[in-house]
């Protein structure tokens, strides 16, 4: 039960910042869907929680935050590649700034807490 609650919180937190995470990994270079998942995993985000990156990529595309093009992948079929547009880079900068501010504020609230989970 507690585990499920933690997973729910993890998903909730991810939901608010996954778009910024996707823009961040795309800022390193254009990528297709699965490639983005690999980059997220390499940076420590193994699970995308309840959702999937595909609807989120669709929203980023609809909002003009990413540009897309089709190109052959390494030895595979042509894939749809994504890269941040200028609006996407601006959104990334704003999102990172907001995240850091929120993280600092929450850290300040949680810092005095000395309780830890013993595994």
């Amino acid at each position: 039960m507690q585990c499920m609650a933690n997973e729910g919180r993890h998903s909730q937190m991810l939901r608010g910042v996954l778009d910024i995470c996707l823009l961040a990994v795309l800022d390193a270079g254009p990528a297709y869907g699965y490639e983005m998942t690999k980059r997220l995993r390499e940076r420590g985000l193994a699970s995308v929680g309840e959702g999937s990156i595909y609807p989120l990529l669709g929203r980023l595309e609809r909002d003009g935050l990413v540009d897309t093009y089709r190109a052959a992948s390494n030895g595979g079929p042509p894939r749809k590649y994504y890269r941040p547009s200028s609006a996407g880079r601006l959104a990334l900068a704003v999102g990172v700034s907001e995240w850091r501010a929120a993280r600092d504020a929450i850290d300040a609230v949680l810092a005095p807490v000395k309780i830890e989970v013993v595994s």
Partner: protein
Amino acid sequence: MSDFVEQCRTEWKRLGVPDSIAEEMQSDLASDIREAEADGVAVEELLGSSASDPRAFAASWATERGIVPMRSGRANRRRGRIALIAFTGVAATALIVAALLLATGEPKVGLAPSRATPPPHFLGATASFVPPPSRVQASAAAPIEWMLLCLAIVALGFSAWLWSRWDRPRVPTAPAQ
């Protein structure tokens, strides 16, 4: 996982996603899943909990891309579920009512006193009571009850079929996250 992709394609078709866009999404999704499986990556890592619900996943993707109106996704499913629950409820109620009527209802064929009953008469000097004439009153309720029962069973069967299509596991090997 081809079954997952196929179900996505079916959902896109149902939602009216243009073929060219649906083919593009299908191709990208199938390629990604194939590559992930080749890398030994669980599908849930790629798709999250969506791995267990391709129709919701497909609707969500198409909706977020702006290809179909917002209400065509989750809201339509919710309305459909409510309608299905209501239909099932009506069918179940009809079945129960029909069964109860058949089990405990009025006799289907009974005797009822005639309203045009002449007063009791006397025969000769000896008074003797002669019961009034009766008429057979046949009730038409029985056929209606049986028809209601049959209709309710058919409706419940149809409802069960709809539920099985609605809730069937899309990807048997992919548990929800």
